[in-house]
């Protein structure tokens, strides 16, 4: 009896405490909402939002619903996160490898980069890029073209837009190339296991990924043209670029600072991962006659990846969550559009903040599930 009591009582007390706290909160919330005449409910999501958003990936204006505004914010958040993750990964891997370089200068340069960017608050970096660095850019009428088609101005980056004809054929050709590469890889692996022959998979893959889309241009009737942004005068001193795709300065500042900041952490993960592979592995691989490339590809990287991936997943999660700092420079992400503007208009604090938090939770969990799946795939198959 005594033994059982000791087991149950702490659990009961904890649960009771949690229930009491939540009960206290809901009770107060009910009273407060009654007093202020607010009713709880998610019905507002279908109401007309009547506010505009400067930058959205889907069609949106004030006549759309709050739910549409939520989607706009969510898509903008995802856009920043995806671009940031891609750039941060590339930069992080390069810097991480550079930190292991035998070259003193490269090594120190990479170390300087890491120590410099990781020790300054991200918000400060975002402010720096947005309010100080990008504000020093020229006005649209003074901007010089880069390669004749890109215009980097104080109002954002203007790039040419792609105008496709028969885009679906091009898309299918790329899908076909990817499937072909997967099949060839599997086949090459089989051939190597059975006969010991090596097929130059990498060269064939590169060939395929170029040739198939090229064929779609020649035979499939795919046409690609560019719409170059053109300067247009609105008033005597007000100019704007028309046509093409315009990336707002908020987006540029945000992706730049997010990727520069996160890349330092990814670089450290990569360095730790490569250092974590024993020196003996490298020497053993070299002594059985593998070329340096093969050593890196077949021996070092598979082992290093196992160490690199879990912390890197964390960094991806951090980047996604940090993208919410967009609210500070008025980039219309989920927090600004939904937890900012929509909350101010509706006053539905509990509903909106809970939806926002739940969305971020879902984003985080889906990234970690994806990366866990990948991690499991490459983990050591213990026997």
């Amino acid at each position, binding site marked *: 009896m005594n033994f059982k009591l000791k087991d149950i009582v702490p659990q009961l007390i904890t649960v009771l405490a949690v229930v009491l706290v939540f009960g206290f*909160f809901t009770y107060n919330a009910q009273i407060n909402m009654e007093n202020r005449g607010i009713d709880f409910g998610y019905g507002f999501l279908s109401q007309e939002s009547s506010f505009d958003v400067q930058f959205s990936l889907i069609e949106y204006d004030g006549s759309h619903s709050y739910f549409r505004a939520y989607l706009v914010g969510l898509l903008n958040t995802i856009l920043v996160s995806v671009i940031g993750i891609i750039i941060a990964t590339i930069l992080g891997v390069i810097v991480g490898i550079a930190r292991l370089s035998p070259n003193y200068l490269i090594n120190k340069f990479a170390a300087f980069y890491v120590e*410099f960017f990781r020790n300054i*608050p991200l918000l400060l970096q975002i402010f720096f890029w947005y309010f100080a660095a990008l504000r020093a850019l020229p006005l649209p009428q003074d901007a010089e073209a880069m390669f004749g088609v890109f215009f980097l101005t104080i109002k954002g980056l203007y790039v040419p837009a792609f105008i496709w004809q028969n885009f679906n054929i091009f898309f299918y050709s790329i899908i076909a190339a990817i499937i072909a590469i997967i099949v060839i890889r599997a086949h090459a692996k089989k051939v190597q296991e059975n006969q010991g022959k090596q097929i130059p998979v990498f060269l064939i893959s590169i060939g395929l990924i170029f040739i198939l889309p090229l064929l779609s241009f020649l035979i499939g009737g795919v046409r690609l043209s560019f719409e170059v942004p053109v300067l247009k005068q609105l008033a005597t001193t007000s100019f704007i670029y028309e046509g093409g795709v315009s990336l707002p300065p908020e987006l540029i500042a945000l992706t730049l600072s997010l990727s520069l900041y996160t890349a330092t952490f990814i670089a450290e993960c990569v360095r730790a991962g490569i250092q974590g592979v024993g020196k003996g592995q490298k020497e053993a691989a070299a002594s059985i006659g593998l070329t340096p490339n093969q050593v890196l590809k077949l021996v070092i990287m598979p082992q290093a990846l196992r160490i690199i991936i879990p912390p890197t997943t964390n960094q991806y999660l951090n980047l996604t969550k940090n993208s919410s*700092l967009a609210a500070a420079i008025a980039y219309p992400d989920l*927090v600004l559009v939904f937890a900012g503007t929509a909350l101010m208009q509706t006053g539905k604090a509990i509903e909106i903040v809970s939806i926002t938090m739940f969305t*971020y939770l879902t984003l985080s969990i889906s990234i970690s599930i994806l990366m866990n799946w990948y991690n499991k795939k490459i983990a050591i198959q213990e026997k």
Partner: protein
Amino acid sequence: MSNINFLKPDRANLNTFLYLGSFLFFISILDVFLNSFFRLNLTGFLPNFLSFLLPLILGFVGLYFIRIEYSGIKNLDLLNKHINTNNFNAILSLLIIFIIIKSLPPILSWFVIDASFAGDTKDVCTGSGACWTYIKVWMRRFMYGMYPNAEQWRINLSFVALVLLGSVGYFATDKFKKYLTLYYVVIYPLIAFLFIFFFISGGPVFFDFSYGIIAAILSIIIGFFIPSKFKFYYFLIVPLALYVILKYFLFFEEYIELGKLDGLNWVETGAWGGLSLTFIISFFCLIFCFPIGMAFALGRRSEFPLIRYISVGFIEFWRGVPLITVLFMSAVMFPMFLPEDFFIDKLVRAIIAISLFEAAYVAEVIRGGLQALPRGQYEAAKSLGMGYWKMHIFVILPQALKLVIPGIANTFLALVKDTPLIFVVGLLEIVGMLNLAKTNPKWLGFAMEGYVFAAIIFWIICYAMSKYSYNLEQKYKTDR
């Protein structure tokens, strides 16, 4: 073939290649140097494109010529080993050297040579360099926020006092070392709390929920002296009894008024700001998030399933959401959850929010340490007849915490770097003050100086912290 052999540097024709190579290398560096420091272009007579690339080509050829293995000259061998191992490395080294030489003059001139330091109006800032006058004029605001100038000695005094009290651990003799944990976990935070509220705030201090806090602290302190056999029942009964006694027999008031210091004006938290607010917030969040995180780390490894689920839920929830939404919650949602006449200051709300948020990260870090300990440690402690708490306090946690010093230091670094986010609840620490200052009509256009200034301050703080944690890690590294 002979032609190629002729161009191949080796030990046989060491001198020729050494002199030729170093000459070319030197010329290329000199060209870039003169170009960037004195705006002289030695190769101006060449076409633009070639003149631009020439130093790189010359330097590359030079480095190729002096790449002689085992030359027997010590410095040359060192140079080759470190920056000149192969063609690719040579190009990268050259690029980095050129970038450094090229970027030095503009940086120097912006920071020092063309910068203005004197005066106290915007008019002195006419040069192309930085306007440090702006920082000088606004220094007090950046450091203390809107805190009245005449009262700022209170902040300084409190900080000095707290730093001195905090460094007690260094001077403690062996006799007092065993009380240090108690001091740092209970007494020091209490002193700090009193300092902040009596001295920096200066207003009358009220203790809401005071019975609960007092009862908990008292029962924990007394609990140290209770034999472990009765500890479970003690903690089951005594805190509640103490709470009831305090509330219904000793004090009858809703809250306890601790009074205020005479002669000090009240400065409301809305006026606090600048770097001192960064310190205050980091300090309190650091103190609070550590015990909370430890509790949840233990909870996550508890053998009671319900406690485990609750801990997992707590940790994963806070780790899954961004801090900015947590602060939003504390600003707009939290007041809805409290009784109407119950008011919590927004600084306190921000501190609670950040502490809970960081506690989840601390919990995960500590859990890593707990998992890394070999099972033998747990079993050995149990076989000595230690209970759960004794085992954790004397055997498990001291070892686990040593293991996770770097992780905890990283979490605290993240905490310091997250403090600027409190602009969400309307508090302005140094970054917030910068944004306020740059919109002042008298001082428009100095955003860059402000951000660079704040960046330098944060960089020094964070770099020092990371180096300190590295030293700590080395100090406590025990062979296992």
